[in-house]
């Protein structure tokens, strides 16, 4: 006699054979309270077994073979250009052009400033006095600093 659990596990997969059904009947005769549940089990197995197949397109196999062929072609011809570079190259080129333009504009700006400063210095040098006039400038300035305090004694005698 099969264990009822074994029979149940068989029944989950397929309807019981004649021998197995006879075994089950013998077991149910001794356990009539389980009859209703076993009937439901049998009915369920049969219902699930009878579920219709899902319709499959007639060209399904052809589509699979086509997809496999596409896969073969893709494997045989790996891409030569790295997709990363392919997508980033235009962006990098654009950034380089913008950067070069910026540097050129900065260079032009500084050159123009330097030229303007040189022209200003030249203009001032034309109106300024001869540098020889200023040769004792430091000594005179020093003398002024020492004579800052008035000579009180001399001022008193003069009065």
């Amino acid at each position, binding site marked *: 006699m099969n264990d009822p659990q074994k029979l149940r596990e068989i029944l989950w*997969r397929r309807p019981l054979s004649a021998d197995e059904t006879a075994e089950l009947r013998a077991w149910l005769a001794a356990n009539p309270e389980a009859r209703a549940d076993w009937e*439901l*089990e049998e009915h*369920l197995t049969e*219902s699930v077994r*009878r579920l219709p197949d899902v319709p499959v397109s007639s060209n399904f196999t052809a589509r699979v073979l086509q997809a496999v062929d596409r896969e073969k072609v893709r494997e045989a011809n790996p891409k030569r250009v790295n997709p990363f570079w392919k997508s980033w190259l235009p962006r990098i080129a654009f950034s380089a052009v913008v950067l070069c333009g910026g540097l050129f504009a900065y260079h032009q700006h500084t050159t123009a400033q330097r030229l303007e400063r040189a022209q200003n210095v030249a203009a001032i040098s034309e109106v300024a006095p001869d540098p020889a006039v200023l040769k004792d400038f430091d000594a005179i300035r020093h003398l002024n600093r020492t004579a800052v305090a008035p000579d009180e004694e001399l001022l008193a005698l003069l009065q």
Partner: protein
Amino acid sequence: MAENLDPDAALMLRVKQGDAAAFTELVEKYKQPVINLIYRTLRDATEAEDLAQNVFVQVYKSADRYRVAAKFSTWLFTIARNLCLNEIRRRSRHPADSLDAVHPEHEDQPLQQFEDRKNFAPPDSLLQGELEQKIDEVLAELPENQRTALLLCRQEELSYEEMSEVLGCSLSATKSLIHRGRETLKEKLKPYLRTGVWKGPKS
């Protein structure tokens, strides 16, 4: 060893050597069970075919790595289940609105349902169709692992041990999943199962 080789594994070894006819034979043999499994998991016929196509392309691409350690069908259904799980995850990240879904602005209006007063005793074929639809609905409500376990049960070539390999759990856990799934089905289908509709001729 050679005489014990699974015939599908033998075909797969031929595929490994580039035999397209062997691959076609495998596709022809397994397209129906694979599409059945995927359709009853995703409930979308077009999606099921596309995903089944990916399953077979994956089989072809992995042919080089195929080892005759397990039965081919176990390996195939494992790939199919993994792709289904990926699709379920993708759908949960990007949910699409169902055209059948009730829109908020129409929420207060009940769905139209017309009772057929004439037809008191529906013909068996109608009941059979209703039962099939109901089974599909209840299967869809089950947790994924219980549903897959029940669907794999229909594949007679898979043993319980092989089913547990596909499901990635122990033998006892697999049987427990089947038991719990069947208990839910029995509970929800009881009124239909008791009518004897299931006895009708197989369509």
